[in-house]
């Protein structure tokens, strides 16, 4: 999941921003957002019977 989030945030950050510092910031935010959202959704789905 972290590897997937890394690749996706890397490509999107480089696509969306031109300045390397902004790319790093956007990529970091996106990576953190993806990982945190996945963990949060995982915890929310925990009580659901599957």
């Amino acid at each position, binding site marked *: 999941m972290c*590897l*997937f989030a890394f*690749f*996706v945030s*890397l*490509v999107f950050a*480089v*696509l969306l921003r*031109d300045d*390397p510092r902004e790319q790093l910031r956007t990529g970091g935010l996106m990576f953190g957002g993806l990982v945190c959202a996945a963990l949060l959704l995982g915890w929310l789905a925990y009580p659901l019977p599957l």
Partner: protein
Amino acid sequence: MTTKSTAAVRARATAEPGTLVLLCVAAWAIPGAGHLWLGRRQKGLVFLLALPAMFLTGLFLNGQLSPFELSDPLVALAAFAQAGMGLPWLLARMVGAGAGMVTSVTWEYGNCFTIVGGLLNFLVVLDAFDIAMGRK
């Protein structure tokens, strides 16, 4: 180092229909080639390394290269998305990689990597097209 103005001049020069088609085909076949062509070296190198690495990770995780089976629309869509990777996808199909192993616990993860990698390359091709048209 290439400046933005130099890149813009080069972009205007490539805004001819024939060159644009060639640029898009190159950008599809080799991820990042379109950006390298247009002088966006940093972006091109990142795409050149990251996208094939993502695709290879998917294959390594027992991902499956879907066939173009129109009777099963979701499988056909997955195949279309994976084909977005270009030459790495073609090579993988030619050498018989990506047979996939449904029983593997990482099968779905592998599919996810190969599908999203292909879709991201489509976005990269569109970005190269926009740059060549002088929109960025």
